């Protein structure tokens, strides 16, 4: 046995040696862009993208996730699942303290869960299957579920379930608690100051439980409202880190070519944003499956990836992004094939009826994409009219089902039960709301598969169910899947190890270091 361990160690060293060739260096200050300025930093109350990005370094969750979405220890150092998959036992790390010096214990976990159920919409849904949570001792937390829930280990990320200090929030009015403005967590960095409209400053937590970490002394999150000015700030050296989405896509190639600049699309695996076209299945030509399939064949998605997204991202094969669990590419393929699209349209008896297209009003990239898709569809003989609208107007039209084709992108949260099924099951058809089953696709078989898939055990059984669901959906084309989006993170190459997990920059500064 020891021999085998030794061999394993040697192998591991051999494999990872080139990556770890450099020892992390301690010290240094990093300037990063945060866009837009977050509305607040108390992660339990506010969960906007920028809040998660800054506060993910102040607060921590029980687990973090690898790029392959395997759970990694954070505040919980180990966990076990009972035979019947209904009891999850977490062993908490010992010797963890809040930034004010008080110890972190199971009581904080219980309190956080109670608080999040009231303040955090997604945490509330994620915890719906939980029957009770108990703490037999200070360092053990036991979750008992009503029924087995496959994706349960996927809900403990810092943005989904941040741990909140009980001694500061217990018995207070959460919304007016003074610590909302100077949040106290267990994370590698401590909140120092926030000059509104200018910068947010975090400093090293000297008592962090992982010895030697964090490596950096300080982080300045710079607030720069204008997109062009953000690019210039990077070019002039004012900032070293441009998180995904903080500069326009077309600036990415120019910035990437700069000296000492590293670009990566990694770090979004947990969110896996997937872009698609809502297709209104209820009315007109799009009610015909063949017309929807024709749309898939007609659109040149490689062009969209290479030109509009500057080569970042991946052509989607179906309802699941390739980075989330139970993804399969063993489904019907829709390559760019205008001839086939024309044939399908003819077969379906489409005679040039007008089809309305709603682009997404999120800026240049999405506008250009709308124009390209329109051209693709017109090339196969469809009559497309683009409807100009703003974000709110577009949301309203889509929610009211007053559209034919509409652009969107949604996060998938690692598991089909958390992020995929919601868009295809018929119980999620609700007029007036966005991001549910607004396309109006209704298939009892799919309903059953997603219902079974969420609670099936073991994993192999879930995989079987979701494989089947993906096959059916891709054949039916309820929506036209476009791209798995990647938001490139641009950094100075001297910034090392910033993105090591599937959550990326949101909890990345824990491991980051500066090569001076």
């Amino acid at each position, binding site marked *: 046995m020891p021999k085998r361990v030794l061999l394993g160690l040697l192998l591991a060293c051999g494999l990872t040696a080139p990556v770890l060739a450099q020892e992390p260096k301690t010290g240094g200050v990093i300037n990063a862009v945060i866009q837009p300025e977050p509305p607040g930093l108390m992660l339990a109350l506010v969960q906007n993208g920028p809040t998660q990005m800054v506060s993910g370094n102040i607060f921590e969750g029980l687990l973090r996730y690898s790029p392959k979405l395997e759970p990694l220890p954070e505040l919980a150092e180990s966990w076990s699942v009972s035979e019947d998959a209904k009891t999850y036992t977490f062993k908490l790390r010992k010797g963890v303290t809040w930034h004010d010096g008080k110890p972190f214990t199971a009581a904080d976990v219980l309190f956080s869960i109670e608080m999040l159920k009231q303040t955090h919409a997604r945490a509330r849904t994620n915890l719906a299957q939980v029957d009770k949570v108990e703490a037999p001792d200070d360092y053990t937390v036991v979750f008992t579920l009503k029924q087995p829930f496959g994706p349960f280990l996927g809900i403990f990320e810092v943005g989904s379930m941040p741990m909140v200090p009980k001694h500061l929030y217990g018995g207070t009015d959460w919304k007016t608690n003074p610590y909302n403005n100077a949040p106290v967590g267990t994370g590698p960095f401590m909140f120092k100051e926030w000059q509104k409209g200018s910068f947010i400053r975090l400093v090293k937590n000297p008592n962090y439980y992982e010895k030697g970490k964090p490596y950096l002394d300080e982080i300045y999150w710079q607030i720069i409202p204008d997109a062009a000015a953000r690019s210039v700030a990077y070019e002039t050296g004012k900032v070293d880190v441009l998180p995904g989405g903080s500069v326009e896509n*077309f600036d990415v190639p120019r910035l990437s070519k700069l000296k000492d600049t590293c670009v990566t699309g990694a770090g979004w695996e947990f969110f896996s944003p997937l872009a698609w076209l809502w297709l209104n299945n209820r009315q007109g030509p799009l009610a015909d499956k063949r017309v929807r399939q024709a749309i898939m064949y007609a659109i040149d998605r490689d062009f969209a990836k290479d*030109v509009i997204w500057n080569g970042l991202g991946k052509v989607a094969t179906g309802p699941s992004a390739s980075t989330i669990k139970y993804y399969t590419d063993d489904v019907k393929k829709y390559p760019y094939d205008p001839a086939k699209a024309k044939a399908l349209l003819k077969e379906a008896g489409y005679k040039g009826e007008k089809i309305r297209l709603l682009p997404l009003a999120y800026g*240049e990239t999405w506008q250009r994409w709308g124009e390209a898709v329109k051209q693709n569809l017109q090339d196969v003989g469809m009559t497309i009219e*683009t409807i*100009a609208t703003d974000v709110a107007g577009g949301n309203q039209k889509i929610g009211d089902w007053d559209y034919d084709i509409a652009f969107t992108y949604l996060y998938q949260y690692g598991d089909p039960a958390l992020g995929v099924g919601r868009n295809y099951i018929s119980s999620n058809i609700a007029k007036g709301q966005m991001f549910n089953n607004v396309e109006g696709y209704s298939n009892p078989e799919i309903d059953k598969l997603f219902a079974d898939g969420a609670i099936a055990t073991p994993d192999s059984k879930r995989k079987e169910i979701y494989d089947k669901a993906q096959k059916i959906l891709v054949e039916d084309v309820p929506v036209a899947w476009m791209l798995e989006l990647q938001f490139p993170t641009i950094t100075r190459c001297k910034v090392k190890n910033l993105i090591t997990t599937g959550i990326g920059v949101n909890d990345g500064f824990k491991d980051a270091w500066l090569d001076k």
Partner: protein
Amino acid sequence: MKQFWKSMLKSPSGVIGLIILLLAISVAVFGPMLFPNSPWRMVQRPFLPPFTVSTVPLGTDALGRDVFAGMIFGARVSLLVGLVSTLVALVVGVPIGAMAGYFGGKVDDALMRFTEFFQTIPSFALAIVLVAILQPSIYSIVASIAVVSWPPVARLVRGEVLSLRTREYVQAAVVTGQSNSWIILREILPNALSPVIVLASLMVATAILLESSLSFLGLGDPNLISWGYMVGAGRTVIRQAWWITVFPGIAILISVLGLNLIGEGLNDALNPRLSREGR
């Protein structure tokens, strides 16, 4: 009429303006026949610089669309919007001005207060609001440009009519018992027309600029390519690809200049006395 053309052709600015306008109109009418493909079609690799590939002489934009084709099709939209919205403004402004000037008194007061109501709102801001409310489309753009550009027409016509109203031949027509509409249409308006024609040529230029500004701000008709749209879409990549904005920008500049020159030429031709004595 002969006299008019003679003096028009004598004025150099008028000639240059006419040439530019004729060129622009022939591009708008015949250009699309030479380019049967839609200007939205992606034809080459994106960001192709101009003068490198002969099929796309002016390069391609961010999606690989032909900038030259875009300019040709854009001419159609820009000129059409300019002409139609000016026409609509005239149809609204001329009768209002004529009635105000001819009838005077309470009618004049009422119509002029109504006109001032539009004049006091900054015209571009009003145009933006109207297009935003009506949803951007070619119709809402023409309508909003017409709405902001008719008040000067009404005021000008009113002034002309006021002065013509007291002329003897008008008085004579009144005495002989002609109807009001007959007098306005047959006696007064023809004589008030020349300043209106000059104003109209300048209004077309302003309308083209307005349409370009609206499209630049993303309030153009999303289904039609126009010069303003091209400038607006290329603006953000100007550091990588100057040609996407520069060429349509030049097209706007030249056509607006041409229309202004025509206005000057018309002014000279229609007021021969003014031009001879004034210089």
